[in-house]
């Protein structure tokens, strides 16, 4: 992204996948970019419309089984997101949106449904629902502090050799094998739903770094930090 131009955020299918405050991720990215003087333009792409290829950061959220299947079908047919990622755009995929990025995920009755193949992962249905606060230690290579958030899903996700785990869980279920989320290139996926970036401004800044090619300047994070500290203290077992 050239330094004088606008940061383009593309929110994919809020009409299908925006069940858990997913708008929060868009709002946090907008706010953190603007506070650094970066102008932002956000496009909401409804599922009947084509996905533009010219975005800098793409976001896709969580949702119910049926909209998840519809979203996967439409993204495959549309192809815009694939072209954008091939071009080097960044993406945050959350929960149902995360599962869609893989080769396969579990449908309404647990049947395998084809994903869109942007991440080397395969998901299915777990035995029970994972609901609750999650804490995970992030891959040190990313320079992002401890992840905190809320998960609510039945998915189990197996990571292939083409991706790295985003984090290792301390509290919570995540992918189901002691890891939570994954990343490859500039694409990151997570089960931390809804406002994952509100709880993890470091992850928001990682996406901004990927999109702008520069480390964003420090900003006043007092309210982000107070929420993080309160949630981590409430969730982590007492020493």
């Amino acid at each position: 992204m050239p330094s004088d131009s606008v940061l383009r955020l593309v929110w994919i299918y809020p009409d299908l996948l925006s069940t858990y405050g997913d708008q929060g991720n868009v709002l946090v990215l907008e706010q953190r970019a603007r506070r650094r003087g970066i102008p932002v333009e956000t496009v909401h792409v409804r599922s009947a419309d084509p996905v533009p290829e010219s975005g800098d950061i793409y976001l896709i959220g969580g949702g119910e089984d049926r909209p998840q299947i519809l979203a996967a079908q439409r993204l495959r047919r549309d192809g815009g997101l694939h072209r954008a990622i091939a071009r080097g755009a960044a993406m945050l995929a959350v929960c149902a949106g995360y599962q869609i990025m893989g080769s396969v995920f579990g449908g309404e009755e647990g049947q395998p449904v084809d994903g869109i193949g942007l991440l080397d992962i395969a998901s299915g249905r777990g035995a029970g629902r994972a609901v609750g606060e999650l804490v995970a230690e992030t891959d040190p290579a990313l320079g992002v502090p401890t992840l905190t958030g809320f998960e609510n899903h039945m998915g189990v996700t197996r990571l292939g050799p083409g991706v790295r785990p985003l984090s290792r869980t301390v509290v919570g279920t995540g992918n189901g094998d002691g890891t939570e989320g994954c990343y490859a290139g500039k694409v990151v996926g997570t089960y931390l739903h809804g406002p994952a970036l509100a709880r993890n401004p470091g992850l928001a800044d990682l996406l901004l770094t990927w999109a702008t090619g520069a480390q964003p300047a420090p900003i006043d994070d007092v309210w982000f930090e107070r929420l993080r500290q309160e949630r981590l203290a409430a969730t982590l077992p007492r020493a």
Partner: protein
Amino acid sequence: MSQLPLRAQLASALGRTAATLSRATGRGDGSVIGGRVGLALEPDLLRKLAQDRRLALVSATNGKTTTTRLITSALQELGDVATNAFGANMPAGHVSALSSAKDAPYGVLEVDEKYLPEVIDTTGAGVVVLMNLSRDQMDRAAEIWLLAQKWRRALAGRNTHVIANADDPLVTWGASTAPSVTWVSAGQPWKEDSWCCPECGGPLDRKGLDYVPPGGHVSGVVGPATQDENDWACRECSFRRPQPSWILDGETAIDPRGRRWPLDIQLPGRANRANAVIALATAEAFGLPVERALPRLREVTSVAGRYTTVEREGRHARLLLAKNPAGWLEAFDVLDPTLPVILSVNAQGPDGRDTSWLWDVDYRVLRGRPVYVTGERKFDLALRLEVADVPFQLMGSFAQALAAQPPGKVDVIANYTAFQQIRSEFGRAV
């Protein structure tokens, strides 16, 4: 009702005793424990208690308690009405409500959305009232499309008359398997859960209203929508809004004969005018004409503490309950824009332990007025307001927030347990 078999009579009586004990020992209002005791002794008690009564079941995501109260007030024109006035909306609460008014020929029961199919089946209720469905407490509640699908199955082929909000596509879909439906245009300010067709998944089009992104329902002023804006149709299949026979038009109800009735109710806000029109349509299904029902609706001033005012040292705080994004949107419509507002949010079990819904609420409408933030999840709310550029002050408790006000009026919006905490500290006056 006096024809209950001996076992059911005994179960019902013991349940009432347990309820009385619960109240006397200060453990609760008794509406759940009494029903549990009764159900444990006689599992078929609800069916037996429901027999030989004319029953209406009321379900929705928002407005259940208030609408139940409005319909109850109206039907009292006709005779005694059994009702679960305190929101105990699962089968134990229904048993308790019906056994404490054994001889009432009418019953109006608020029913939890998930339990509705079971309660329809058990009670064989003649009338079912469905208002709205939207995202709510996703960490424990069922997904709403699945809920609507269960409603469809429960209503199919059953001799039940449904009163339903035609402006809510998911409610319309949930109700449309019923053999007879009275469609009411009661409005739907919160549209974020219905941009897609519940029947086929295609895009829903709304006349005169392009797609509004979530959070883009700006202004927060839920002014009267035009009939065109309430209309919707699927672009890809034949599913579309049915023609409503009752219409909420601003402050006025229009009945099926086209007569206009200024509502003039005391409960504030658009959502309550919507609840009132639904109540009028339900009353008519019981044979009660508008001219007799409407004066009864106008007598209702506060429902289970909602809209009531608590006072301490000259500060008069009006309490509004909002449990989910659609509820907050309707609560903003009730706020007095000249007053400061105190917001209190918890995330206990009944609230849902997940606060991510805060990001679905458009708080920008609060810019320009003093905002005070409290509650067990005040940091979640504080960050949400910070990102929305809404200045606020963080307070350690509701009492502190109230004491920080100049003497006079203040509005309060709280979610469920935060609201109950304020009521128990400042009095449960209804």
